[in-house]
């Protein structure tokens, strides 16, 4: 879950402590920036600017370096994710099996790839090959791999979760 101002203090404290532990495990070394960002994103769901500033301060790195690394890698997200997350594999096998049509459905009904629908319900991503080419076209839906997905199935699922 993304950090929200309404999160109970106890929970927030705990996450801070866990992030602190991740940094101390690497002796606050700047070389461990990517590991620390992985840990931070796992705890908070995304990397808000204040969090990046804090990491920069603790690891004694210029904020530009931390921001530069966080924006360079696809894995890190600077904005909160929606309630549901669709990652359409766009590897070659999925592409020739019709991944683009699936992505079109999601882009038409929810959000552009890489974005989140205005109501915060669905995030859409065009994923790099997930290596499950035997299941093409594949979609990772909230962390679960769906195999041989059709436009019809996808539309039905979107109807089910109440996407207009």
């Amino acid at each position, binding site marked *: 879950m993304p950090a929200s101002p309404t999160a109970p203090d106890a929970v927030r404290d705990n996450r801070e402590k866990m992030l602190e532990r991740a940094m101390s495990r690497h002796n606050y070394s*700047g070389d461990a920036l990517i*590991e620390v960002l992985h840990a931070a994103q796992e705890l908070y769901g995304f990397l808000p600017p204040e969090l990046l500033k804090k990491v920069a301060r603790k690891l004694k790195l210029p904020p530009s370096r931390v921001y530069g690394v966080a924006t*360079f890698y696809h*894995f890190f997200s600077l904005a909160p994710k929606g309630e549901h997350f669709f990652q359409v594999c766009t*590897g*070659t096998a999925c592409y*020739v099996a019709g991944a683009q049509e699936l992505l079109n459905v999601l882009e038409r009904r929810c959000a552009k790839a890489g974005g989140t629908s205005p109501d915060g319900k669905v995030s859409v991503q065009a994923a*790099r090959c997930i*290596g499950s080419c035997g299941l093409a076209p594949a979609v990772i839906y909230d962390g679960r791999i769906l195999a041989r997905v059709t436009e019809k199935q996808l539309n039905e699922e979107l109807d089910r979760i109440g996407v207009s």
Partner: protein
Amino acid sequence: MTLDELIERQESEQERQRKLKRRILCCTAAGCMSCGAETVRKAVAAEIQAQGKESEMEVCGTGCMGLCSRGPLVRTSDDGSLYGDVDAEDAAALVSDAPAAYARLGAKRIDTSAPFFTRQKKIVLAHSGEVDPERLNDYIAAGGYQALGRALAEMTPEEVIAEIRKSGLRGRGGAGYPTALKWELVAKQSATPKYVVCNADEGDPGAFMDRSILEGDPHLVLEGMAIAGYAVGAQQGYIYVRGEYALAIQRLQAAIRQAERERLLGSRVFEESFQFRIDLRIGAGAFVCGEETALIASIEGRRGQPRQRPPYPPESGLWGQPTLINNVETFANVAPILLNGGDWFASIGSGASKGTKVFALAGRIANTGLIEVPMGIPLREIIFDIGGGVPGGGGFKAAQTGGPSGGCIPAEYLDTPVDYESLAAIGSIMGSGGLIVMDQASSMVDVARFFMEFCMDESCGKCIPCRAGTVQMHDILTRILNGEGTPDDIEMLERLCIVLRETSLCGLGQTAPNPVLSTLRYFRHEYEQLVQPKPAPAGGQS
């Protein structure tokens, strides 16, 4: 553990397995996992208990069994049968001895005398589907860690490198650089510390060989790295693995812990003076990090941008120290070479390409999955005999190898032997092992645009030819596909291809034009059809 203790452990584990009536091996690689393998495994375990057969049967998860399109796959050890499309309701039959039970499974039995199985030659994948990747003893029973033990006890580092040289092993990441030469370069550096890095940032779309090796046989890679560490004089190794490969990461972490506990890694390996630690570095999703200097930058916690070479990593790599970087599959070949000898390895394969190569078959092909074949096998045999041909009557059009750095191979070159030089001669590359088959319905211009879009997204932005060139080429290809292209566009595309190839800083930009060049070479008519000049406006168009 000493070498003698290791051999003792091997024998007692083999004995334990022999005494079992049946081991039920469930493929738990990512492909089968995503279609219910875990449910099957749990159901079988529950069934063994329910039938009170704990003393005679056991259920194990294994690495990839290859035929991913038929998953979940299950193998029974006593008769060697392989079953496909297994579900939880088959559990009782798998555990039962009643002939009636076999009737249910009969329809799901896969014919293992089919070419898909018999034409393969397994070195790297020899244990995959046979051993439980989460149990060190399974690997030891299969002879695991004996190559490392023997190397430490009986060979000098120079002798290890000599054996690798004799084998003719070349880098399996795609470029095919002779492995022994790289090892020698690192070994002769006097600066210390040195590092061994395993490149597991498998990024080509349509390629899942490395993931399958790491998931199916993690200890094989660890052992290969430790042998390399001994040969070049390094005490620290890193595995740079894609963040998306959650299962591979989990299994590697477990394998490292197990090996350290038994002194097969860590300090005083095999009670000898040699020490070698391995740590994981989790990638964060950047294709360019497969390039070795970008990978180094990423391990150091920076943006994964390549730098000018030379100096090459063997001289100045991680933190400026001598660094050996090999691909997962390369390391996986090391222990089998030391166990069986370099001459044995060199007897497999053809010409200057020795040994085997793992391929991931995908696209319009009947048997999608993971295969390992001797080098030099004709492409036709891979696609039509092992792969089962093109389904749906669409007919074969092209095979794509080497991902975004590779090319499309048309039907007239199907008899090309699969080795480094032959594939390069027809405008593709061996690459890391992705092999995607396209049928007549696929537009080759669209395929070229697909790969260009990939390179455009993944360009790190450091050098201008790649940063700007991929965008321009993508725009032109899109224009052509939309029917708005002109014959001049094709010419411009060709000029840009040369600029990118000759002037980009790293392999990503230098090879980004390959899919365009190869489709232009073999399917130029498809481009030309799309840029037919429109009828003259004098015709009275409004």
